[in-house]
């Protein structure tokens, strides 16, 4: 296996912090092209995406269809805007292509299309499907004698979808230890707090009762994220692996934290410039712990 394929476990925490910053900055920049975008649910997942793609996953941008690669299913497809710049940065395609983000005929829409975008392992957008896709991939990897892992990132509101629990039940039943699900537990769905709209807790108990091994971590703490990855067992037969990442919707831009207004939005004028500067300055302490308008 080449160094490219093992894909740098040795990256520093500072590098990953910088890449999370890059994800937030690109999200803001690309949203301006589209005129609207999913800022806050991308921001909550920025550290998770950075850790997955720059430190954890076994991928090779020079050989995107490599059968032995780890796969990533972005079940919360609406944060593709945070994934696209990462794939370009890693060399899956030319970053120039993103200049046409969402424009007529572009490959890059709000939700990712595997047929149009190199490096996207599966198309998504309809919430609740990704865990089933990932389960199928995990079963295939096992059938094919392939030691790759399948990573699936879900939102927390998405867990309302019944199909998630069909998949959770069957992943436990089939013992897909090579399946790693990550819930970006950013606490909000569109209409309010998940616990007010349709409660999803107690998540640890729920997934454990479906036969999963569950870790619960601070999803903005890169050491905790990497620690959770390091704790994943090898082998493809056992318990499916769940990482519940407690995050803050909108993290990284204080006015967006826990705000219902910024699920989809568009920064203009001075607000745009101020947000860019705030992101460049790095994460500040969280100011909002409760849902707010």
């Amino acid at each position: 296996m080449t160094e490219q394929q093992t894909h740098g476990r040795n990256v520093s925490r500072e590098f990953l912090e910088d890449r999370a910053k890059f994800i937030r900055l690109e999200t803001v920049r690309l949203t301006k092209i589209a005129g609207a975008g999913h800022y806050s649910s991308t921001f909550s997942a920025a550290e998770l995406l950075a850790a997955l793609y720059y430190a954890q996953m076994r991928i090779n941008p020079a050989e995107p269809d490599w059968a032995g690669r780890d796969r990533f299913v972005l079940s919360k497809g609406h944060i593709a805007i945070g994934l696209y710049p990462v794939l370009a940065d890693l060399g899956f395609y030319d970053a120039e292509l993103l200049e046409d983000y969402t424009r007529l005929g572009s490959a890059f829409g709000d939700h990712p299309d595997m047929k149009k975008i190199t490096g996207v392992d599966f198309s998504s957008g309809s919430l609740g499907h990704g865990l089933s896709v990932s389960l199928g991939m995990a079963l295939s990897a096992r059938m094919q004698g392939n030691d790759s892992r399948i990573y699936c990132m879900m939102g927390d509101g998405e867990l309302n979808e019944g199909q998630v629990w069909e998949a959770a039940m069957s992943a436990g039943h089939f013992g897909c230890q090579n399946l790693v699900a990550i819930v970006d537990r950013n606490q909000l769905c569109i209409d309010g707090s998940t616990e007010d709209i349709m409660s999803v807790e107690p998540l640890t108990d729920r997934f454990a009762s479906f036969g999963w091994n569950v870790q619960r971590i601070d999803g903005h703490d890169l050491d905790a994220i990497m620690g959770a990855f390091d704790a994943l067992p090898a082998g493809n037969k056992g318990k499916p692996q769940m990482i519940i990442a407690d995050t803050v919707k909108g993290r990284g831009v204080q006015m967006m934290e826990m705000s219902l207004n910024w699920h989809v939005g568009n920064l203009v004028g001075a607000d745009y410039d101020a947000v860019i500067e705030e992101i460049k300055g790095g994460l500040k302490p969280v100011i909002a712990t409760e849902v707010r308008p």
Partner: protein
Amino acid sequence: MSEAEGDVLSGLFTGISDLKESRSVKGTPASRLPAFILGEELADLADHDPRIVVLTADLASANRTTEFRDRHPERFFDFGIAEKNMITAAAGMASCGQIPFTATFAAFCGILGAEQVRTDCAYTGLPVRVLGHHSGMSMGFYGTSHHALEDLAMMRTIANLTVICTTDANHLRAVLRASLNHDKPMYIRLGRGRDPEVYADVPEIEIGKAIRLREGKDLTLITTGAQVHACLEAADALAEKGIETRVVDMHTIKPLDEAEVRAAAAETGAVLTVEEHNIIGGLGSAVAEVLVECERLPFRRHGIDDEFVLIGPPAGLYAHYRLDAPGVRDVALELLEKR
């Protein structure tokens, strides 16, 4: 066992002794009925093709994928009663280079799983083969929840999806074999599994190419699936009245063999479509779409006239809705009277 007794059972479930030996349908021995060959054919194909995987949703006993399970246990997955998860997981497998066949009642894949077929199989262009068995009203007295008279309409509107109805056991074998070299996702509709033999041998088929089973100059019956047999019998009955009827097995609903439809209009002057489906959206609609762009002619869509059907034994339903041979004959005569 009489046909009436056999008709009580819509499916072929375990716990029924001597099934294979004791039942024949219109002269077709049970061993040559679709329900008995699905698992066997898939297992035979899998002997030579490592890509094949079979998934079902707690219906292995009904669709006889048990034979595949017994011969290829490492490539068989019973997902329990969770069809959406099954279809989407199949798409995940297909993205890893496998050819998954999912098998469940048509009502629970062609209708319940329609979004999963569209978004996860067709949008992605992955070679999932969704097998919808016990389609139409072949579940008889199990009722509307278990009928699928809308599935062709729903599947036909999905871009990039190939939609095929299988006629009998030999045709089913041909479709399964052809599917291994087809690069698109497929919805494959099976009847009740007790569909009498139309093809004495496994036919040479081409996806998208209709099969003309009988020539005629006065009328064309364009039909599909389990209705093909009834239409051939109806054509015999019409011949007794001096009406020479062409019968076309339009097994591929999408992409439709438009040339065959135009030829029927031009050469026989009247077209009757016959299908075990709502007349809205299925084969009749597909043919009508071609014909209205073609020329004026006596044309009628025969199927279920946009209603939920009565409860009853399947044979009673086919007679009531005139989807058996005498019924098709009568509808054809009505159509021709208007010419």
